[in-house]
C-alpha cells in the first residue's frame, strides 16, 4: 500500500532531517543477539538525534517470558555495551525506555498471537502510533514462514486504522533458489513487495552509498566506466577472524552463501549498473536488477573453471597462532564447508562485454578489508624506456574504493621520479573519509531502520534481485556440492588458496589490499 506523503511545512529546510512518523517496531527475536547488538542501539541513537517521533514504541517478542521492566533492563545493558557513548543522558534514556515493551509469542501457541494483537491495539491507543507497524524478523530463517502465517491468521498483517505495515527480513534469503523463491512466495502471500524490506547491511554503509555518488555526481568517471578503458574489476571482502562461536551456523552456510551471493553481488551491481533516471527506490533497484539479469549464465564447465573454494588450516594472524577451521568449536572435523570463495563473473551488455568481475571472500585472511578495485587497461603504446632500452613496465591505473576499514578512494597512476632521466613509479592519490571528514559515519542499521520507517526501500534488496542472484550462482553451488571443484586448503594468515590466483589468468593478479 502506497502511503501518501505529508509535507510538513515546519520540517522544510536543510537542517531538519526527515524524522519517522510514530510507529510500533515489533521485533521478533528480541531476546537474541541482533536485537541487542544492533537494533535497539540503533533505535536509541536515532531517538537521541530526535529522528523518532513522540510515541515511538518498541514491542519486543520472543518465546521466553519477560516483563516490560526486565526487557528494559536487558536493553539498557545492550545500549551501554554497544553504543559508543552508552546510555548518555539519563532522562533521555528514561524517555526512550518508557516506550519499550515486551510480550512472549510462540508460533506453536496461537493464543500468544491473540495476546500480541491485543497488546498492539492497547499500545496504539496509549502511544498514538497511528496504526503504523515496523515488523522486524530477527529470528532464524526457519521461523519466517511460521511467524508470517501467524500474523495473517490473527489479522496482524493489516493496520486497523489506516497506518502502514512494513516487514524487515534479515539475510540469508533462502539457502538456494528454490528456498528463496519459496520464502518470497510465502511473504508475498501476506504482504506486497513494497511492504517487504530485505536487509543487506552492506548497503547501509556510508562508503557503499558513496559508490553511486562517485559515479553519478562526477562527470569525469562515466566516460571511462566501460570495457574500452576497464580491464577488470576485483571485489574483495576479507576477514582476519575465523568463525569464532558461529561454527554451527557457518557449517550450514559457507563463504559463498554468507558473502558472495548477497553482499558482493550487490556491490557488483552498484559498480556495473547504468545511471538510474532518478534516485527513487524503484529506479535504482531496476538498474541493479538489470545487471544481474545481464550476468552471463554459468554452464557446468564455466562454473568449474570460474570458481575456487578453500578452507583455512592452522596458521598465524597478527603474530598469534590460530587453529584451522576443522578444529573450531561446533565444526565437523571433516567439514567440507568453504571458508574462502572466489568466482569470475561476466556481464553481457554493451558496457561490460568481456570484462571479468572477480569476487573473493574469506575468513582468516591477513587483514579485515572490503574493497572494490577497478583495474584499467594498459596504455596502448609504451613511450617510456628503461635505461636498458626495454619498454618501461608501468602498472596500469587502478581506482580503489575501500568500503572498510579506513573508508576512502584512491587512484593509482604513474608519475616521474625527480631526476635527470625518466623513471616512472606508481603513486597514489588518496581521499579518506576519516581525514577529510572528521565526522563519524552513522551506523548502517541506523540508516536502514530510519529508511524503513520513512518508506524508502532504496537500500534494501528487492525480491527479483534476490531470486536472480540465486539463479546465477546455483551452477557454482551444484558443482561444489558434486565435488567437481576441489576444496583447497590455505594457511590462516595468507590470501587464500593458490587456485584463486589461477582464476585471474594471464596478466592479471589479485591486488594486495
Amino acid at each position, binding site marked *: 500500500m502506497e502511503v501518501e506523503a*505529508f509535507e*510538513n*511545512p*515546519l*520540517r*522544510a*529546510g*536543510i*537542517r*531538519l532531517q526527515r*524524522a*519517522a*512518523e*510514530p510507529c510500533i517496531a515489533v521485533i521478533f527475536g528480541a531476546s537474541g543477539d541482533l536485537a541487542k547488538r544492533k537494533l535497539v542501539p540503533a533505535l536509541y541513537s536515532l*531517538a*537521541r538525534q*530526535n529522528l523518532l*517521533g*513522540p*510515541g515511538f514504541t518498541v514491542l519486543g517478542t520472543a518465546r521466553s517470558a519477560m516483563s516490560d521492566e526486565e526487557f528494559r533492563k536487558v536493553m539498557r545493558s545492550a545500549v551501554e555495551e554497544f553504543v559508543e557513548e552508552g546510555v*548518555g*543522558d539519563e*532522562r*533521555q534514556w*528514561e*524517555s526512550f525506555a518508557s*516506550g519499550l515493551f515486551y510480550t512472549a509469542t510462540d508460533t506453536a501457541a496461537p493464543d500468544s498471537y491473540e495476546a500480541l494483537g491485543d497488546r498492539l491495539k492497547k499500545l496504539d491507543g*496509549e*502511544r*498514538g502510533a*497511528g496504526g503504523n507497524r515496523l515488523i522486524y524478523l530477527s529470528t532464524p530463517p526457519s521461523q519466517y514462514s511460521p511467524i508470517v502465517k501467524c500474523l495473517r491468521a490473527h489479522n496482524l498483517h493489516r493496520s486497523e486504522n489506516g*497506518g502502514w505495515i512494513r516487514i524487515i527480513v534479515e539475510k540469508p534469503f533462502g539457502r538456494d533458489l528454490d528456498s528463496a523463491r519459496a520464502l518470497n512466495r510465502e511473504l508475498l502471500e501476506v504482504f506486497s513487495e513494497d511492504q517487504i524490506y530485505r536487509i543487506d547491511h552492506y548497503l547501509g554503509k556510508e562508503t557503499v552509498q558513496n559508490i553511486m555518488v562517485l559515479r553519478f555526481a562526477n562527470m569525469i568517471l562515466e566516460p571511462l566506466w566501460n570495457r574500452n578503458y576497464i580491464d577488470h574489476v576485483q571485489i574483495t571482502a576479507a576477514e582476519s577472524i575465523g568463525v569464532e562461536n558461529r561454527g554451527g551456523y557457518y557449517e550450514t552456510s559457507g563463504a559463498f552463501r554468507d558473502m558472495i551471493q548477497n553482499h558482493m553481488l550487490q556491490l557488483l551491481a552498484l559498480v556495473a549498473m547504468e545511471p538510474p533516471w532518478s534516485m527513487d527506490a524503484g529506479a535504482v533497484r531496476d538498474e541493479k536488477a538489470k545487471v544481474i539479469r545481464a550476468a552471463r549464465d554459468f554452464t557446468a564447465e564455466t562454473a568449474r573453471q570460474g570458481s575456487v573454494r578453500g578452507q583455512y588450516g592452522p596458521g598465524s594472524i597478527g603474530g598469534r597462532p590460530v587453529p584451522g577451521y576443522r578444529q573450531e568449536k561446533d565444526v565437523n572435523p571433516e567439514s567440507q564447508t568453504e571458508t574462502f570463495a572466489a568466482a569470475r563473473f561476466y556481464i553481457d551488455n554493451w558496457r561490460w562485454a568481456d570484462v571479468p568481475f572477480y569476487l573473493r571472500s574469506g575468513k582468516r585472511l591477513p587483514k579485515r578489508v572490503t574493497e572494490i578495485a577497478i583495474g584499467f587497461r594498459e596504455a596502448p603504446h609504451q613511450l617510456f624506456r628503461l635505461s636498458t632500452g626495454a619498454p618501461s613496465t608501468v602498472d596500469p591505473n587502478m581506482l580503489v574504493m575501500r568500503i572498510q*576499514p*579506513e573508508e576512502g578512494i584512491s587512484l593509482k597512476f604513474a608519475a616521474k621520479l625527480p631526476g635527470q632521466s625518466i623513471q616512472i613509479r606508481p603513486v597514489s592519490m588518496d581521499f*579518506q573519509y*576519516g*581525514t*577529510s*571528514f*572528521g*565526522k563519524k559515519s552513522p551506523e548502517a542499521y541506523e540508516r536502514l531502520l530510519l529508511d524503513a520507517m520513512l518508506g524508502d526501500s532504496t537500500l534494501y534488496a528487492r525480491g527479483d534481485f534476490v531470486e536472480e542472484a540465486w539463479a546465477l550462482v546455483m551452477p557454482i553451488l551444484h558443482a561444489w556440492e558434486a565435488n567437481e571443484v576441489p576444496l583447497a586448503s590455505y594457511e590462516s594468515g595468507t590470501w587464500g588458496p593458490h587456485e584463486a590466483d589461477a582464476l585471474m589468468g594471464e596478466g592479471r593478479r589479485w591486488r594486495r589490499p
Partner: protein
Amino acid sequence: MSTETAAGIDVGKIEHDLRQLWIDMAAAKEGASDSPGVLRACVQNLIVYAPGEELGSALAGVLAEISAQHPSRIFLILPRGEDQETQATVSAVCHVTAGRKQVCCEQIAIEAGPGELARISSVIEPLLVSDLPVVLWWRSDIPFGDREFGRLIRRADRVILDSSKLPAEEGSFGQLVGLVEAVQRWTAFTDLSWSALTPWRQLLSGFFDVPMFRPRMELLDEVKLEVSAPAGAPMPVEAKLVAGWLATRLGWKRQSDMVRDGNVVRLELAGRTHPVRMQIELKPDGVEGKARLTAVRLLASTDPGSEFAVTRSAGGKHLVTSATLGGSKQCGTVAQFDGLDEGRMVGRELEILEHDLVYETTLQFFRT
C-alpha cells in the same frame, strides 16, 4: 614560523613558510618508526576574524576541534592597535585519528593594525587554496557598510556570523536582511543563533509528523514564547527568529509591528483563514547573562484544551515536548539539549554547503 616586516605582510614569505612547514614535519617523522605518519588534509579555506583574541587562547582549542572535522587552511585575523607589530605566523594544526594517523592542516595567523586590515583581503586572496570553498567566520559585531568587510564577504562561499551580536537598536535586523539579500547570489549565510534553534525547530515540527496531530496545524491561532532574561533586556534574537520561522512556514502575514508592553511583546498576524496572535514574554530571572528561550507553546482557541509545547527544563539541559488534545495529555519526549560548544556548533555548520533558504525566508519576515 613568523614573518615580520615593517612594510606590511610579506605574502611570499608566508608561502615559503607554508612549504617549509611540511618539509620540517616530514623530516621530524623520518626514522621514527613508532610514531604515526603525517597526512596533510584540506577541504576548505577558513577565514576567522577574531578581535580580542590572542594566539594560543581558547580560540586555538576551538579551531583545533573544527579542524578535526573539517581540515582547513585557516586564516586567523587578529586585529591589533596601530602601535603594535604586524606579523604573520604559520603553524600546523594537527590531530591524531582513530587509525593513529596524524592529520594536519595549516594555520596562518595574521596580527595586523588598522592599516593592514583595510587591505587584508589582498593578503589572503593569493594564499587561498584553489578549488576549495572559502568560509568567513566573523566573530564580532557586523560592520555594515565597511568596504573591506564587503570584499571579504564577496570572496566567501559561506559567511558564519551570530545575529545575537547585532546592535540592540531597531533596524539592525533590517540591515542584516539587506546584507544577506545583497550577496545572496554568491554567498550563503550561517547564523549561529539560528543554528542554536535547530533542536527547538526539530521538536516543534515533530508534532505535526504525527497523523493525529496534523489537522491541528491549520487551527493554530496563538503562539506564546517565553524567554528568561535579565531585567530590562532587549528582546532576544532567538525569540524573533522562532517567531519569524513559524510565521513564514505557516503562511502567516504581519498585520502589525511588534509592540512592547512592559515585558510582553505582541504581534498580530493574518493566517490563511483566521487571525493569529503572537506573544513573547520576557521573564526576568535576575541572572546576569544572555537571554534564553525557555518555552514555545502553540495553541488553537477553536480546539480548547489542546496545546503543543516545547519547554526547556529548569536545569537547561533538556527540551521536553508535550502535546495535549482536548485536555488529554499525549505522549511526549525528552531531548537532550546539549548546548553545543562553539567548536562543535561551527563544525556542524560547516557540513552545510548550500543556502539555508528557510533562514533567508525567515529574515524576510523582518524586512522593513
